[in-house]
């Protein structure tokens, strides 16, 4: 071992970190080399000197201060821990339940608000006219004729799901029965006193024709009445459907706001139509025609169901007045508007044409009257 290698191993040797084999080598070198031996002795001296030195002691004030700080810190931490503990099991549930209650109450209020908004929303100009539910309105009106006509002609709104299906049922039934009743009632000899004045100008020869015509008018009224009674006898079926429709309506109530609106509008048309029919009923054909024409000329054109009745009413009025061609025109309009009424309209048109032809043949001069 040379001196450089010894120098490297010397520290480990002093620190007692050399391996046993190396330790022997170092010892051998120490014995052989005086220079390294002196160096080693000096290092040992230095080491001993520092180890013998008495450590300076920090002042007790410093130590006490540090100790107190440590205790305070631990204590503070412990307090904050207990604070956290007391907060978590009491305050957290209390606060969360309070929050939940608040939300629940608010939600409840919002529910009320929704209904309020709904009423606000329904404060529409047309909604003000909102009648009682259709059936109720019909029953409460006390105007049986109007009610009958309503049910006969299926005036109820198609947009109203309450009445849509029974209405179709009734009108379909009427279309079926219309023709048979008409033919059955043709020979009916029941005089229509109101119409007599209207057909004064028609000669004696035309009386059978007149009777036919009267029969037609009467048959309409009678068929209406029969339809009505038929509708009521078969009411069980239609009422069941009504119930189903009502259930469906309750579910889709909100969706049908638009439909309701249009039905309100329709009810306004209905009022006008009812007036026209009343006028017709009381024999005031001119006023009825006028009302009907106004109804047809309304800005948003009335729905097909209304139109259908208007044309029928107009046709009947013109028939009463003896204006055959006008009546024919209105029946044609009815035919176009309502496919349900086609059978009735067809038969009427046929009858009227025959009548017109008869009149043409017998009294050519009378033809000018309706054309005026």
């Amino acid at each position, binding site marked *: 071992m040379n001196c450089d290698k010894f*120098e*490297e191993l*010397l*520290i*480990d040797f002093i*620190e007692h*970190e050399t391996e046993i084999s190396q330790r022997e080598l170092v010892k051998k070198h120490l014995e052989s080399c005086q220079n390294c031996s002196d*160096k080693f002795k*000096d*290092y040992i*001296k*230095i*080491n001993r*000197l*520092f*180890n*013998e*030195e*008495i*450590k*300076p*002691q*920090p*002042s*007790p004030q*410093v*130590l006490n*201060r*540090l*100790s107190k*700080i*440590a*205790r305070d*810190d*631990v*204590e503070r*931490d*412990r307090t904050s821990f207990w604070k956290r503990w007391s907060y978590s099991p009491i305050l957290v549930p209390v606060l969360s339940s309070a929050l939940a209650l608040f939300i629940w109450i608010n939600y409840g209020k919002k529910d009320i608000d929704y209904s309020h908004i709904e009423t606000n929303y329904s404060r529409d100009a047309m909604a003000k006219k909102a009648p009682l539910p259709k059936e109720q309105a019909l029953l409460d009106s006390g105007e049986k004729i109007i009610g009958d006509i309503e049910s006969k002609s299926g005036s109820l709104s198609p947009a109203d799901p309450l009445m849509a299906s029974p209405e179709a049922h009734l009108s379909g039934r009427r279309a079926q029965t219309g023709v048979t009743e008409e033919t059955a009632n043709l020979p009916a000899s029941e005089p229509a006193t109101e119409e007599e004045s209207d057909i004064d100008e028609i000669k004696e020869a035309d009386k059978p024709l007149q009777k036919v015509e009267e029969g037609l008018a009467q048959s309409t009224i009678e068929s209406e009445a029969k339809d009505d009674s038929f509708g009521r006898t078969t009411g069980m079926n239609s009422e069941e459907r009504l119930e189903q429709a009502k259930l469906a309506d309750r579910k889709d109530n909100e969706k049908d706001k638009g439909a309701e609106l249009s039905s309100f509008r329709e009810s306004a048309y209905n009022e006008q139509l009812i007036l026209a029919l009343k006028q017709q009923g009381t024999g005031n054909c001119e006023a009825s025609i006028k009302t009907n024409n106004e109804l047809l000329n309304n800005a948003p054109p009335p729905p097909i169901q209304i139109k259908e009745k208007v044309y029928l009413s107009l046709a009947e009025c013109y028939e009463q007045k003896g204006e055959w061609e006008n009546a024919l025109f209105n029946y044609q309009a009815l035919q176009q508007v309502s496919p349900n009424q086609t059978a009735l309209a067809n038969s009427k048109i046929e009858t009227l044409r025959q009548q017109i032809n008869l009149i043409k043949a017998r009294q050519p001069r009378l033809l000018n009257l309706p054309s005026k």
Partner: protein
Amino acid sequence: MFGLGTKKELTDEEAMARFRNGDARGFDLLLQRHSAGLLRFIMRMIKATKPQAEDLLQEVFLKIIENRKKYDSNQRFTSWLYSLARNHCIDYIRVEKYRQHNSLDSSSFSNKSDGPVILDIIRSKDKNQEERAIDEETHTLLNQGIEDLKKELREVFLLREIEGLSLKEIGDITVVPLSTVKSRLRYAYRDLRHYFIKVGYFEEVQRAKEV
């Protein structure tokens, strides 16, 4: 004075773990064990008087209190303690150097006179009863010899020969590999020997022996 002082069986790490978990007596034990060694280390590192060193000592232990929850039981407590102390000393030296550079505008020669000045202070004011037990001259020489060492050599020498930390621990504290620690320790011994020979201490001892 300290509650756990008698419980010698507790290691530093166990005591620190207790303190971390809220037992202040663990801290007292550590304070009792290491305050003196740390104070000496600081005094030698920053070449300062005892009150100055005590200020730094307090800062180091406050840091321990502050960061007690971050303490990892697998880490040697002494490594952590001396690592904190070393960093504080380095910061202190840096600030002090800057302050001296600004205030002492005289010349770079003044640095040379710094050593004796500090030594004088230590000698005159900070010698307590224990220190007086050592030969005054030897004590002065020791201080001077260590102060003359380079900072890197000084810290390794102090940690190893005075505080008795393992070479590996010193490597952790000073953030250098083990081989570097060994070589630095060797250079520290070599320089100190040269110093003692230079100042004639070893020769005098030799002479005294011969006489």
